[in-house]
């Protein structure tokens, strides 16, 4: 928890912003998929902090924060969707904002996968900037499939182009890339790789990572499951604390046995917390019918 200074707050696309926050010493151990809770306003409304995925971490990713900048910090890529993010969009350089984090788990890193396919929908691109960096360190090939409603719904696209990562784009209206859903790109990609039946220990080790809307994640999970390819999804949820105390960000899981549940109806754990158990989950763990 620290009081951080706003380095910049740039409007990059209609309703999308990049917020640079000075973090003394950075988040040296921060991993792709982790998030911070920001207290956007000193006022009582909005009362609660808001969770945001960490887009760039200078210490970890070596990404400069602004031209000639020597300060250490993180970058948040966010979309204005409600009162909190609307207030956030008005933040100016030098403003103070309280940062709690980094919180949550991260995408699996070194399980020996060779091909990593990252599927992102709109703002769901956020965790993948740092993930690409860690893939490169592990000599895994990575491919990004990026979908949005239109060309203005692909935030951070230029950053990924600069990274030189292989990226395919689709938009609902065809204004950039192919017309259609990003899940179609995933189907094509998996056909191309001929990854049928390749599990974790298969010779063609493919792993799917996804972040985006719940319907998109559900579709991605189904596609990966049919191919028997491991898939991890990063979930978003309303949360009050971010540290496993409020139990508000529960997500329905298929259930694992826990000690203490005596009756047959009650002997499974039905909920996990997005903040503490996640935000990254094995897609097979999630009860997609109830999401």
């Amino acid at each position, binding site marked *: 928890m620290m009081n951080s200074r706003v380095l910049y707050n740039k409007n990059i696309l209609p309703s999308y912003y990049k917020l640079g926050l000075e973090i003394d010493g950075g988040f040296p151990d921060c991993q792709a998929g982790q998030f911070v809770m920001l*207290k956007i306003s000193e006022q009582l409304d909005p009362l609660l902090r808001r969770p945001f995925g960490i887009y760039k971490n200078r210490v970890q990713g070596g990404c400069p924060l602004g031209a000639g900048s020597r300060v250490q910090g993180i970058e948040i890529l966010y979309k204005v969707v409600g009162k909190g993010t609307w207030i956030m969009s008005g933040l100016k350089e030098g403003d103070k904002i309280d940062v709690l984090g980094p919180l949550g788990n991260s995408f699996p890193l070194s399980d020996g996968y060779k091909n990593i396919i990252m599927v992102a929908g709109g703002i769901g691109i956020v965790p993948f900037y740092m993930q690409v960096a860690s893939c490169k360190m592990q000599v895994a090939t990575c491919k990004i499939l990026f979908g949005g409603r239109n060309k203005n719904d692909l935030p951070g696209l230029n950053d990924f182009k600069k990274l030189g990562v292989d990226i395919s784009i689709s938009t609902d209206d065809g204004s950039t890339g192919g017309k259609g859903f990003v899940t179609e790109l995933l189907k094509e990609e998996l056909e191309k790789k001929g990854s049928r039946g390749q599990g974790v220990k298969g010779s063609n080790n493919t792993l799917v990572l996804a972040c985006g809307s719940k319907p998109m994640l559900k579709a991605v999970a189904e596609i990966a499951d049919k191919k028997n390819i491991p898939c991890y999804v990063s979930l978003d949820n309303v949360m009050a604390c971010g*540290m496993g105390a409020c139990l*508000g960000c529960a997500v329905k899981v298929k259930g694992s046995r826990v000690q203490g549940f005596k009756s047959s109806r*009650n002997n499974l*754990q039905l909920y996990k917390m997005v903040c503490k158990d996640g935000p990254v989950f094995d897609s097979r763990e999630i009860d997609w019918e109830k999401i």
Partner: protein
Amino acid sequence: MKKQHKLSLRGALAPKQSPSEIASASPRNDITPNLSVNIAGIHLKNPVMTASGTFGYGEEYSPYVDLNKLGAIIVKGLSLKPRQGNPCPRIVETPAGMLNAIGLQNVGVDVFIKEKLPFLKKYNAPVIANIFGQGIDEYTEVAKRLDGTGIAGIEINISCPNVKKGGIVFGTNPKEAAKVVRAVKKAASLPIITKLSPNVTDIKIMARAVEDAGSDAISLINTITGMAIDVEKRKPKLANITGGLSGPAIRPIAVRMVWETSKVVKIPIIGIGGIMTANDALEFIIAGAKAVQIGTANFVEPDVTIKILKGIEDYCERHRIKNLMELIGSLKRH
């Protein structure tokens, strides 16, 4: 009571200073104010406690708060068997507050004793277990199992609005509430605090009923039943439809209820309801609360309890209050 009155009189006769004089006076006070209070035989080194359901089992907050500094830790409500809780969405933010319908998700009393309590015992803050049940038998069984485990006391939740038969029937009916208190009192030799629901016509009746039944202290208020609707979808924002409203939005109601209750009961009152700052906590203390519980604010600022404690100390120094007892129920007339 007599002693307390004398002390407050002395406080009132203290030489008056302007705020600037007070601010510039350094050091303000030779003696650190004594903030310790005794609630039903539980010694608290200060009046700042954590409210059940907002502080997990303590461990979640240990990276942010020195748990030794807290007056007491009240853990998430415990039932006999683990509970899964309600479907999602479980929380929604409202103006200066939040609605929750967690549904009393908890690990159950046995897992608490085995896995959560050992961690808390490493600290010297008294641990108070909040308990609830679907019937009197469950309340007494949970209380029995907690007796002798090293916890300092039990807070009976007769007022959670989010679970069918989860206590609200006890929380709104004075006779039923008294039955639960009597039964728990009989089942365990621990000090008993009864947490009251604000969802009643007259909280004084409930307070008197549990006092007469033998409750050693009362804490109030629990959340106020509320509802929020997504007008685009014409659906309730919570899967449970209704939830419990907490946060600063409910504070004036809570302060009023503490003040009303303080006039009709002799047992100690613990004030709860939207406390975000030391000043908020002081409102409850001046209204008649001997201690306070911090709830929703923990979510916003994990170390808020420590800040509130510091603020109360500063206030006492500024007002030359040597003992917190001088301040409790010290509300003056207009």
